[in-house]
């Protein structure tokens, strides 16, 4: 069994774990983490597809995809977290009012 395939299976397991928790959890922060784990699984698949053995240089195109994906994901995560914090403030002020 090749190294790339081994890491691909690891990535698929990450996807499975993430999806399972994403569907079942109601905690907002946990959803954010689950989506990040999902993305890590997808990235592992891409990086494993790019691996071409210890001697050959790896395929740079999937690497570029993953780099782009990481930046997109961190910004989306930041947006989600900012929404969560803002929602929390609003609910807190409602609690104070009543």
């Amino acid at each position, binding site marked *: 069994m090749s190294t790339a395939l081994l890491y691909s299976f690891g990535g698929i397991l990450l*996807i499975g774990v993430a999806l399972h928790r*994403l569907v079942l959890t109601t905690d*907002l922060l946990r*959803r954010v983490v689950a*989506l990040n784990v*999902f*993305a890590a699984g*997808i990235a592992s*698949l*891409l990086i494993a*597809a790019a691996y071409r053995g210890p001697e050959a240089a790896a395929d740079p*195109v*999937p690497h570029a*995809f993953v780099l*782009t*994906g990481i930046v*997109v994901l961190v*910004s*989306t995560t930041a*947006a*989600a977290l900012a*929404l*969560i914090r*803002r*929602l929390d403030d*609003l*609910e807190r002020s*409602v609690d104070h009012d009543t």
Partner: protein
Amino acid sequence: MIWSDPSTMTPEIMTWDLPSLVVILPLLAAVAAFLLPSAAVGIGLGATALVGAASSALAARLLASGPEISHLGGWTVPLGIALRVDGFAALMLVTTAGIGMLVGLAASRSFAAKGATEAPAEERQRLFFWPLWLLLLAGLNALYLSSDVFNIYISLEILGLSAVGLAVLSGKAAALRAGLTYLFAGLLGSLLFLLGVDYLYAATGRVDLASLGAIDEMTPALSMALVLMLAGLAIKTALFPLHFWLPAAHSNATAPASALLSALVVKGSLYVALRLWVDVFAPTAGLGTLIGLLGAGAIVWGSIQAMRVDRLKLLVAYSTVAQIGLICLVFALTDEIGGETAWQGAVYLILAHAAAKSAMFLAVGRIAEHLGHDSLERLHREPLRPGMAQVAFALAAVSLIGLPPSAGFLGKWLLLEGAMRADAWLWVGVMVLGTMLSVAYLMRPISGFLRFDRVEGPVIMPSRLDAADLWPLGLAVVAIAMGLLAATPLSLLAVGSPFVVPEVVP
């Protein structure tokens, strides 16, 4: 929407790289509108008009000289990224800019500066609408022109984030909660899409649509990739039963934002799905039937919910779920004999729904402003005679139901004709059922506008004709008129149509 005559254009425009410009212009304008909040309205409307002009010029160029490809960075595919403009893309570009312009004009009115009495939340709506709309426009245009699956993924992210921004524009807790669900659903959708891209690249080493479309054999990896990408897009398009985020997100946003979200944003991902389905992959009949069945489920479920809800905005939002289902029936019909006709019908329904639904959301916004609520039950007790907003709503409903001569009628008719030619009577039945259901739920608010038997006291007339009612009315008229003036759009759609080129047809 202006269809300029190619012969009147200066030769200079004929050589400009318009495809890049329609993406870059709104981007630069978005930054400018964010930098200079005081000039945001002018920048927003000006840029939208400019993009509309560029899109129309591009469409005219297409009619004169066929589909265009521009290779970005000078690198040809598969190494580089190409922007491809065919009739479908050009039609979407022009429609988006046109609807955006009218909604923008309405927004400039409803978010008008109120001076010292303005609350901080109102000020934020006024200032942030424009950069978000321009980012949305850039994302949509990038999506229409993209011919590369990874590039589509990033464009979808731009679209998704600016859409979430529009959904939470009001800053109210309900809108934020809905926006957060929307963000999670959208992110899950784009990650599933990316997973599909992953499998595509692992199996073929290609991400550009031209190379992918040239592959004849559907290997398991390609089928997997297609299913994953379509699943991701189905979440973003809110195809039943993945529509869970839509009603809350669309009904809690402010009126212009709702109009853009339901007219344009859900269509962006639908556009991509249709393109992948028709242009790139050889459609498999089983999967198409499955999507068609989901569409039928959406029609029934969306209509039933629309008949049960108590809020006008929620009714309009559920009607979007049903209409998306109607359009998705095309996935079951493309590989049949009437495939091209059905496809034309679906495209026309996308355009018709965009115009009608934006008109409807704007009209509902105006009605809610007048009455102070959007409760359907209390509508019967309001002593107000219907004004221009109610007329706009009714006209939009005509197009949504599909009464002649509206654009909705034409789209539905073409779709129906495609189904009948393929002898697909099941789908014909679903469409007829959908039409009857849409009559049923749309009559609820319209009868509310017209019935005064439960009103205590005299019935009053609306104060005067307000210019703000012109924009929803204009959009509703467009939704009707596009049915009468269908020749140009349909001949544009034929430019580079995937059904005309024999080798792409499966």
